[in-house]
């Protein structure tokens, strides 16, 4: 697996990581870490940056206010996939619709993080840190979740499929990152000397070791940056015996202030392709995998004046995977009529993303959801995790 020259460095790194992991390790009870066996379950978080329009993704076609508010932006239910008597799925989501039909996908509608304002960057910070206010918490909930897993032998438990580590995965637990590169690979000699140069640096040493490990895992995948390749690349990491169990992917381009119909169709097609290639690439492991897709907030219920929507509040979260108890839309639907909207403008949130994530992540990784909620969202005020969505 790992390069002969680099193996000693990896070993040394694990030692340093454990010795220095005080902060991360303190967040979980030590007996849990020691008792649990290496998990075979996988958890993937996909963030939609830019506030995805839940109302045009899982369309409340039966709500009489929907067509009126959306006008030309309304998705015609005749072209969409009917999910139930109230909701239909955007026509671009063909593979996702197939997963829904196979009961491997569900949607949780009118969901939102605790954030109630309309700044993308603050909203993403709250979603990724698991705080209740922007910049209140320094590390990310996915990093804390990683810390709840038993340590892997010879690698990091989590990876960001990105050149840099997103906020949700930053924190005391070491994680890896990888993105396909078009630059030529350095010589073994340079790689070894760089390793020596970083050996004493507490920031560069772990980062370099993680980069080497990720490069080993990615070897031979010929990965590229398109959605299908990224799905396969992620799957190839997660299916390696010493590969990570948690992955995070970022998608951007959801901020549709104008020309929304074509843009959203393109965005959803790409995400649909990514999800299908994840499923296909994971093969039998898909049965032990749970994927959560979420965005920082929703968009206005009404179309704006320029063929788009502005920043809103409630949106839809997606839960997919071979172990998902899917084929349903979970919603305490607040309605879109006058007086039912949040601040007369947005879909009113009726379920917390923190409660949803805690419940789904807990069940997905066979951890106690209440304990997961306390570790991931300690400031959330004790909302009950949403359970029953994943087969335990």
């Amino acid at each position, binding site marked *: 697996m790992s390069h002969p020259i680099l193996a000693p460095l990896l070993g040394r790194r694990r030692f340093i990581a454990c010795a220095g992991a005080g902060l991360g390790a303190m967040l979980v009870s030590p007996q849990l870490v020691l008792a649990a066996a290496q998990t075979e379950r996988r958890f993937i978080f996909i963030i939609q940056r830019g506030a995805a329009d839940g109302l045009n993704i899982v369309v409340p076609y039966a709500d009489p206010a929907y067509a009126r508010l959306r006008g030309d932006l309304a998705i015609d239910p005749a072209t969409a996939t009917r999910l139930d008597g109230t909701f239909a799925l955007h026509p671009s989501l063909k593979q996702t619709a197939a997963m829904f039909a196979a009961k491997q996908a569900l949607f949780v509608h009118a969901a939102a993080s605790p954030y109630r304002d309309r700044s*993308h960057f603050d909203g993403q910070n709250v979603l990724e840190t698991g705080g209740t206010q922007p910049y209140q918490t320094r590390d990310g909930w996915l990093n804390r979740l990683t810390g709840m897993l038993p340590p892997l032998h010879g690698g990091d438990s989590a990876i960001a499929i990105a050149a840099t580590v997103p906020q949700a995965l930053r924190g005391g637990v070491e994680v890896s990152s990888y993105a396909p590169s078009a630059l030529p690979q350095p010589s073994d000699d340079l790689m070894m000397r760089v390793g020596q140069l970083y050996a004493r640096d507490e920031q560069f040493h772990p980062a370099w070791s993680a980069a080497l490990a990720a490069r080993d895992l990615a070897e031979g995948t010929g990965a590229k940056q398109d959605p299908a390749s990224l799905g396969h690349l992620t799957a190839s990491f997660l299916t390696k015996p010493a590969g990570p169990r948690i992955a995070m992917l970022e998608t951007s381009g959801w901020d549709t202030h104008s020309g929304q119909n074509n843009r959203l169709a393109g965005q959803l097609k790409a995400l649909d392709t990514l999800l299908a290639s994840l499923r296909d690439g994971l093969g039998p492991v898909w049965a032990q995998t749970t994927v959560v897709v979420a965005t920082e907030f929703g968009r206005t219920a009404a179309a704006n*004046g320029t063929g788009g929507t502005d920043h809103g509040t409630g949106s839809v979260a997606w839960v997919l995977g071979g172990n998902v108890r899917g084929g349903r839309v979970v919603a305490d639907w607040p309605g879109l009529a006058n007086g039912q909207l949040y601040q007369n403008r947005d879909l009113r949130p009726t379920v917390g993303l923190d409660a949803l994530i805690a419940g789904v992540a807990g069940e997905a990784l066979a951890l106690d959801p209440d304990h997961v909620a306390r570790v991931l969202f300690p400031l959330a005020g004790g909302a009950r995790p949403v359970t029953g969505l994943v087969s335990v």
Partner: protein
Amino acid sequence: MPVSHALSPQAIALNRFGLGASPGAAPADPRGWLLDQFAHYEPRPAGFAALPDAGAMVTAYQAERRMERKNQPPAPADGTGVKDPALLAARQDYGQQVQALYRAAVQARSDAALQTQAPFVERMVHFWSNHFCVSVDNQPVTAYAGAFERDAIRPHVLGRFEDMAMAVEHHPAMLIYLNQNQSIGPNSVAAQRGDPAKRRGLNENLGREIMELHTLGVRSGYTQADVTEFARALTGWSVSGAESNEPGTFLFRDRQHEPGSRQILGRTYHQLGEHQARAALADFTHAPATATHIATKLARHFAGDTPPPAMVERLAGVFSSSGGDLPTLYKALIDSPEAWQPQPLKFKTPWEWTISALRGLGRGETGAIQMAAVQRQLGQQVWKPGSPAGWDDISASWIAPDALMRRVEFAQRLVLPLGDQIDARALAPRLLPASLDPATAGQVAMAESPASALALLLVSPDFLRR
């Protein structure tokens, strides 16, 4: 940030305030060297001046498309786009022109950074360009991005904040990027005409980001009602089309402007037309919240991820008392002891690192190096932060395993032709005067080849930080 070897004032002036050492530059008086640069800054370097006219290119293409669309059935709703071969060919051609213009603009920006006699001021160009960023997420913005930095940022970097903000918010790149050119007052003349079912209206994107990102700062006390009112005041701020003598430039469209006075942050704006939003924007640029917002970002850029409160307060005071005079603000910054802390305070971004590496190797121009492609590979595609907040100025955002690997890859590629021309052992103390960690010097000296030694120097912890 963990400690590398302590930096000398010379190394700080070169790397933290400047863009890295270039051969010959070893400032005896670091503070004086920085202040002296105000006289040597070139607002319109040759590469920027030579860029083709983005406005003409974009408007000509849009006019052509409008003509085509008349003979074209509407595109299908599933986003599969048009199938007409002539239109597809025209799109492809336009796309290539846009990409060529973008690449040329990135080269111009890089050459300016390599050749400048005022690297501190040039760094401030990059800072403001990121503060007031556009992101090249679509073709018109991609075409305009170089002109945006040249015409809205560079002329004002030694001027007043208000003037820079005015230039930025009037620039077609910003108006298009944040959808302002499409925003129409719901009660304007333009909205009242035509089919009521297809009536166009307000888009609050630019109004919100001006308040949140460009001036006052998020959570500084404005409300959704203030954002909506400011968006109404901004209606009519648009871009001229092919019918104009100057296509693709700022145009106030009176017929799209929402009539009436506006209440924003407790003030009433009775001004007519373009001047209404102009007056509100001018007030924003002089608000105490803006002074704090700008001071915080400057302190974070120069004094570390956690901006020292005393420095923020001091810079905010200077910003306010000088009326947003930027050279006065820079002087206060250079006089701030927090920015001269000897331990490294920042991890260089890919852009900062590439420029400092090229300068360090004595490259006076980018030449055959395609900087647009290089920056994309290193994770910081020029003018494409992907969000109107710009690139993050926090070290943790850049120090990631894969990003580090990319730098090693690029360093090796960069030094291959230079191995027998530059002695890394001699170069190292010039890049980091009296500041090189002896362990790094030892590793560099022990490298198996001169090229390998150079690559190691460029990716050393000493050179990756500033």
